[in-house]
């Protein structure tokens, strides 16, 4: 069995499951947020009764993150609904807005808080829940109805997916980031190339990545249509998880030679900085091909591009430079925002590097990644041409149907922010990086 099959077998109490079978699984964690939480709660109450209790309060995680810093009265009412439900149900894992507990983007907060655990099953009312697969977990997005069902029962049906395996052989060149790998893959297979399937990432190129790089890969599985992304857990995974929780997890691995849908191999040294052109994540081009394209906006943030390592990468390029277009920096979580002020590059904090470069600094949340209410920080309002570290560039995604969005790595976005044109990060990476890049190719 594949890793995904083994997790689903364990969760359904079976010794074996096969791809294509439908099984009922026991859920280890259900996660929801401010956009889908209130309707989920509404369904739960409608179906199980006003006084019903959730199936296991220790397994419910509620992280408001989407529409936080807005005057929209409906959006703010959604937070009130979450707060009241968490209090009524006495939920220990609610991260309230306006308190010390507030986190920000759920997919980055989940690992920070120790909810991403090898061998477990996680469902979340957000399509990028697949991010947690980086920890060797089965994690996928669901809707409100399914989440309401889980709230009452702790169970859900799933069809066991086939697995597509993507192997990166050799060390990743220093000017290449995980985002380049996943944009390459999505460009190769298309936005429906992995529909109903699991995507597994492997090879020494992947296994040498830290957890945040791995999360960037699994985060965008949904942009290939995938059900879940997965990476076999190893010491890097265990170190990360054990530092954050004493939960007793059981890691699972692929059996020797399991049956895959397909296996695709990449030579890491051949990889190029990539973009996804408007208006689809599979509209791939190398940076070389679109170099010089005029921009009016740069955006660094979100679950996929707003982690501390993403900002470390951007700072490496922006240090001692000025941005040439409006540039927005949005840390995924409050912890990342704090880390911006305590993490140094070349003698300067990341926060100061961005401020001195002239970037606008935001509060931790999903912000303009998905547009949001009209007063959302960094939202595209008109005909902007934006380069962004986020994960979707569908028409209107960042707020305006007239805007164009290019997706790229933090390196590429930072280099492009300086020139106001799509720019190859190799032009701005420090010299020692160029030397090692030469060694890898």
């Amino acid at each position, binding site marked *: 069995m594949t890793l995904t099959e083994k997790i689903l077998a364990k969760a359904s109490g079976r010794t074996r499951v096969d791809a294509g079978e439908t099984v009922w699984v026991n859920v280890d964690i259900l996660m929801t947020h401010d956009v889908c939480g209130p309707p989920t709660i509404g369904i739960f109450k409608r179906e199980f009764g006003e006084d019903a209790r959730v199936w296991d309060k220790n397994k419910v995680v509620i992280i408001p993150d989407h529409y936080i810093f807005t005057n929209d009265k409906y959006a703010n009412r959604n937070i009130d609904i979450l707060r009241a439900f968490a209090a009524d149900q006495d939920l220990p894992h609610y991260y309230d807005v306006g308190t010390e507990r507030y986190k920000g983007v759920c997919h980055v907060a989940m690992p920070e808080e120790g909810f991403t655990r090898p061998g477990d099953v996680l469902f979340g009312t957000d399509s990028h829940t697949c991010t947690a697969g980086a920890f060797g977990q089965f994690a996928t997005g669901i809707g*409100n109805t399914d989440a309401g*069902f889980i709230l009452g029962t702790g169970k859900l049906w799933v069809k066991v997916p086939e697995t597509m395996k993507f192997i990166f052989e050799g060390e990743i060149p220093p000017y290449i980031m995980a985002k380049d790998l996943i944009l390459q893959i999505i460009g190769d297979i298309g936005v429906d190339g992995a529909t109903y399937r699991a995507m597994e990432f492997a090879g020494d190129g992947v296994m040498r990545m830290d957890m945040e790089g791995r999360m960037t890969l699994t985060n965008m599985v949904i942009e290939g249509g995938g059900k879940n992304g997965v990476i076999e857990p190893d010491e890097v995974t265990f170190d990360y998880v054990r530092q954050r929780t004493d939960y007793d997890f059981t890691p699972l691995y692929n059996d020797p030679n399991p049956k895959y849908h397909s296996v695709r191999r990449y030579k890491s040294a051949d990889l190029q900085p990539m973009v996804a052109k408007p208006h689809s994540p599979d509209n791939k081009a190398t940076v070389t091909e679109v170099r010089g394209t005029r921009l009016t906006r740069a955006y660094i943030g979100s679950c996929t591009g707003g982690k501390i390592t993403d900002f470390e990468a951007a700072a490496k390029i922006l240090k001692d430079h000025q941005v040439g277009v409006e540039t927005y920096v949005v840390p995924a979580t409050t912890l990342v925002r704090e880390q911006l002020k305590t993490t140094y590059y070349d003698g300067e904090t990341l926060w100061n590097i961005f401020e001195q470069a002239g970037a606008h600094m935001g509060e931790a949340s999903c912000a303009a990644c998905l*547009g949001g209410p009209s007063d959302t920080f960094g939202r595209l309002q008109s005909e902007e041409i934006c380069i962004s570290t986020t994960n979707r560039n569908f028409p209107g995604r960042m707020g305006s149907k007239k805007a164009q969005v290019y997706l790229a790595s933090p390196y590429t976005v930072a280099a492009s922010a300086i020139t106001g044109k799509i720019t190859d990060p190799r032009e701005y990476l420090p010299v020692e990086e160029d030397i090692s890049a030469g060694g890898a190719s």
Partner: protein
Amino acid sequence: MDKTIKGKAFVVGNDIDTDQIIPAEHLVYSLDDPEERRFYGRYSLSGVPEKESGLPHGGIPFTAPDKFKSEFKVIIGGKNFGCGSSREHAPFSLMEAGAEAVVATGYARIFYRNAVDGGFIIPYESHDDLIGNISTGDEVEIDGELNIIKNLTTGKSYPLKKLGDVIDIVEAGGIFKYAAKHGMI
């Protein structure tokens, strides 16, 4: 599935994502409150770029400005319909606008699952790409027993795939009704 669905078709293209079905800025309304939920019908498919809204010519809003209900009952799409976010507001908005079915060559899985488990609309898959064969405004009829869609305007019929594994949940009217019927809840 003995249900027949008859009404006007609304045709869109490939890869219609959930931001096009219901743009994120509208996700703030209550899905329960009868006054507020109507806005999901008003803004359903409002994120589709104008030239692709109502093919072949485009420029047709799914729900007319200032209305809450659409005149179209069946949405015709291409591949990967409903890709993107997990927002259940997407199939909900189509239902709230008055649509009863989508016919596409393929679906993104979360949208498909939400449509079925929520009992909002029926997501049929067609063998052939119907985008060039049905025009917005054509009168169509879906025969759920024979698994065909007829274009009553042109007189042509096209086969649909059987609903397969999920037919029991579709017939029950969603996952809760299905689970209740089978003594699970």
